[in-house]
């Protein structure tokens, strides 16, 4: 569910995904200089990280962190 993975092999460390995340889900790892998924429970599935990733290294699943209740 939500943001599932960032492919470290493909990632170029540009940090676009970190800046694109309005919920602070993704943080840069000081040592590896690569982004890590730190707070997936706050992901809102906007997919801005995935859409703007120049290396197509990110996959966001449309599954929400909590279900959308359709019948109210």
């Amino acid at each position, binding site marked *: 569910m939500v943001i599932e993975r960032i492919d470290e092999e493909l990632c170029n460390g540009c940090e676009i995904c970190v800046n694109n995340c309005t*919920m602070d889900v993704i943080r840069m790892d000081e040592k590896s200089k690569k982004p890590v998924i730190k707070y997936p*429970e706050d992901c809102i599935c*906007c*997919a801005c990280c995935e*859409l703007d990733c120049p290396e197509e290294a990110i996959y966001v699943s449309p599954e929400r962190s909590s279900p*959308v209740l*359709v019948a*109210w």
Partner: protein
Amino acid sequence: MYDVAIIGGGIAGFFAAIKAGEKGLNVTLVDKAYAGKSGASAFAGMGYMVYNPEWGLDRDAFLKEMYIKGDYLNNREWAEIILKDSLTTYRDLVSWGVEFPIENVNNTPNDEYFLPFGVVRIKRRQPMPILRKQAIKAGVKIIDRTMVTDLLKQDGKVVGAIGFPITSYDLQIFKAKATVLCTGYNSFKPSGAEIASLTGDGDAMAYRVGTEITGKEFPDTGNYGMTPYTSWRGGRGSRAVFRYYTLPEGGRVQVGDEQDLSLEFVVHAGKGPILWDLDAATPQDIERMRKRQQSSDPMESERIGFDPGQGGKIPIAGGGAAGAPTAQTAGIWPMNTQCSSSVPGLYVAGECCGTRYIGAYHPAPGFGLTGSAVTGLRAGFGAVEYALHQKKPKLDNKVLESLKTTLYEPANRKSGFSPRWVTQILQNTMIPYFILHIKHENRLKAALTIVEFIRKNLVPKLTAKDSHELRLAHETKNMALNAEMILRASLFRTESRGQHYREDFPRRDDPSWLVWTKVHDKGGAMTVTKEPIPEEWWPDLSKPYEERYPKRFPGE
């Protein structure tokens, strides 16, 4: 030390920052995420309201239709100002490189579908990064990923704000001669909607320094979830979508106006869930739905490959906005057309500025975005003028120490309640359609009891394990305050009007409720008062009710 500190990096914040920066002042813009990718503006994709007489738009027809739709709750002074300035901001945006695709037979930028209103198409996610560049060009110092928690108020004036970077516990103090709040509206972090960072921080901070907050009883019914599961309301192509909203027992759902409560009423009658019957859609309607999706939700189609032509019966949820207010009808009360609040030194713009120009109802897409740009521009100029006549503020240590303690309390607490859990309770209390959209005194009071308990017993014991959670804790505290404002204003207005519907008072009540509401703090207690609407802005009371108000509420 800044001349002007702007809090919030959406369209209002950028307009204020660019205008103040271009005057040569020392300006900073602070955002809790990354300015340009943050807030509702970053996801705006439905349109931008522009009134341009050169496009053949009729100003009188435009305003008249807006007042009728707004159930006469419009502030007409603001309506005229925003119409006039909409063209100024549109021209600014064009000159900065923002694109407005033209798609109509007359070859004018406005979409004729929305006549008599002027609405131009925009490209989703394009404008804000351009505005960020423009702000940097204007010399604005942008500070990203920094959560502002409170305004600094001393000697009756706001002299800046304090906060922390969401990646550490470092204290950040923004001393400023003038402060502009551009923090957007509040929702309750509905699941999967892109507005989850909008937690009414500005309304809450302004309330705490003693300003008045208006219009909290008017919720938004629009869709914000980039998902086929959230009802598609508003915009060209909505009609084609509505034609296939069906009931499980068979038959079509009668959808009235694009933003009305018809879906909620169906569900309230126990006839849900509403199913979007794509199997029945004609090829022409599927094409219309695709166009609507491309104009408003291109990310969704690109990312999960949802296509209206895929068939199936999709259950939909209403109230995707889940707590968000009617654009600029709710927000901090602006004292004048320069957007100053009732506290000197504090200016307000964007969705947290209650201009009330559209009244009680969303007329068409793009009105929130344009109202935000215009108030941003005006607050920018207002703040500059004020800052030029102020001396450097000297901070009072006592004020600072007390706010600092409040800021770090959740992080220093060893035990208590997690912000995520308290948020969940708030969602469960506020988001159900029978609280937020179809209201009744009994249910509002029940919800208020819960929210009061949350504010009294849970909020003071919020915990934070790290700086990320410290942001969540402050957001939760602000959402809880906003929830109480929404419930109290909703209880107070004992009539129905626009997007505020009371099952127990299903009629508009003229002239008793030709008033705006104001929520404010009175000696620690939240109070609601009435502010009369000038009589010359009232509907013609000599006409029968049915003529004054063409739209009916159920049960009236």
